[in-house]
């Protein structure tokens, strides 16, 4: 009954202070969009890192004029390794063709000769091979006479790890900042609402209302503001994602081999619940000092 009464009074409060709350929700939605966008970046970097990590591969660049017998011997060795699932021989012509298909650098590269592209053996490792194991295989393969260079993508993974770490730190910092903003904005909004409804509070207290009874609707209003701001931010990001993902997908696929993904269900739920909880805390804190009548 008390909850029902608090909901009824919160609805009335939201209706009476709607202008104030619209301004607050819009301001907070901007903060949540910043956080959501950063989380979207982290999610996509994570997805790319996971994809690269899982599809472990090594590229063996072959010497110019390498003996076909040496190359064949190398293939036999590779195919005999338990960690290797597939070996493909890429000729310079195939490498050129593949490059021209995927690269979108804004210049006419059709005149590039095949000789620019070295022949290679693309080695696909089985699922679950660790980066360390991949590095050790690469080091051993570099000893072969036919091999001029080995690319195990270790440095890329390292860079990606750094990037991911930085992005996660940024997201963490932004989450703290957004939390502070939500508490401050909702706290101030509720404070204004409390000041405008001071007489109501006084009347209720004189009639024998407990602090919980008085506080209830304000906490619900704060909770609603936090939730509505987070929801507005998630919906804005979703619209942006749906509009842009077609055009971004092809570029990203060429660069990283992965597609753009939206925030996971857990992240969305965490944003919405987090918004509601922080909103409730912000309003509970700000209304506390007005309860002494």
């Amino acid at each position, binding site marked *: *009954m*008390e909850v029902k*009464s608090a909901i009824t009074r919160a609805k009335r409060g939201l209706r*009476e202070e709607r202008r104030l709350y619209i301004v607050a929700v819009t301001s907070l939605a901007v903060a949540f969009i910043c956080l959501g966008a950063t989380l979207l970046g982290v999610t996509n970097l994570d997805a790319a890192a996971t994809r690269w990590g899982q599809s472990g591969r090594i590229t063996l660049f072959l010497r110019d004029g390498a003996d076909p017998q040496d190359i064949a011997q190398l293939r036999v060795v590779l195919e005999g390794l338990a960690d290797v699932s597939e070996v493909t021989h890429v000729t310079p012509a195939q490498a050129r063709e593949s490059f021209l298909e995927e690269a979108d650098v804004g210049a006419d590269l059709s005149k590039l000769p095949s000789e620019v592209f070295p022949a290679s053996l693309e080695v696909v490792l089985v699922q679950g091979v660790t980066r360390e194991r991949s590095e050790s295989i690469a080091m051993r393969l570099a000893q072969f006479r036919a091999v001029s260079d080995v690319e195990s993508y270790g440095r890329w993974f390292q860079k990606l790890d750094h990037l991911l770490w930085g992005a996660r730190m940024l997201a963490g910092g932004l989450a703290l900042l957004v939390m502070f903003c939500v508490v401050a904005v909702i706290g101030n909004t509720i404070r204004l609402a409390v000041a405008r409804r001071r*007489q*109501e509070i*006084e*009347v*209720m*207290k*004189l*009639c*024998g*209302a*407990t602090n919980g*009874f008085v506080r209830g609707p304000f906490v619900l209003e704060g909770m609603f503001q936090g939730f509505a701001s987070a929801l507005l931010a998630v919906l804005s990001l979703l619209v942006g994602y749906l509009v842009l993902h077609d055009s971004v997908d092809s570029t990203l696929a060429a660069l990283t081999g992965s597609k753009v993904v939206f925030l996971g269900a857990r992240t969305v739920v965490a944003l919405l619940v987090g918004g509601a909880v922080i909103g409730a805390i912000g309003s509970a804190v700000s209304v506390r000092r007005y309860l002494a*009548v």
Partner: protein
Amino acid sequence: MQGTKVVRPFPFFRAGARASQPQLSKPILVLEDVYKFFRPDQPTLRGVDLSVERGEFAFITGPSGAGKSTLLKLIYRELRVDEGRVLFCGRDIGRLTDKSIPFLRRNLGVVFQDFRIIDHWTVFENVAVALEIVSMPQRLIRSRVAEALERVGLAGRGPEQTSNLSGGEKQRVAVARAIVPEPALILADEPTGNLDPHLAIDILTLFEEINSTGTTVLFATHDHSLISKRDHRLISIDDGRVSEAQQGLKHWQGSSGIHTLVG
């Protein structure tokens, strides 16, 4: 080990609790040697002794600033006594914990000079708030509010916006809010101060009708014309001290003149 004595909320001041039979036979309100200081050297109330029986109607009068409102505030615990005791239904309300104060106030009805009703609420909402706080079912709230509005002469006016009412009607809404939880004691702090003389008489009559059903009423006023028209017990506060007449001004034994008495 002798620790600080913890005062628990009195059962009577908890939701749903009722006064026991021995409590009902005692005075509803007793003030024992009550002092209230706002400045250390000048008490607003000094050594006030007072006893109010159940079902009594008493005027509290005195010049402006004499301490009438302070006395009432001590009873509904907006203020706390500095010395002495205020016993309501035998309980020392000066020692109530903050958490128990709401349960004390549910046993009191308070009416103010400035009405203290919410203008943007309807008449019904203004009265119903006193029952909503005790989580009463809506069906019961509707019938109790309708009954209270009928008692104050506002039957059928529940859906009206309070801002459209006259001063006298607003005060009737405030009275309905005070009586709707059926409190044991009603404290009226200058309830006619903002009203015309004829409306003041109407409101006084309304309080007398409420009193006739058994509710104790303390009616603070400095309006001489009101006091002189009735023979109720008269409690006068002057310079923080209390003097009394059991049957209105006609039986006044105090040393001060009538004008000093009522300000």
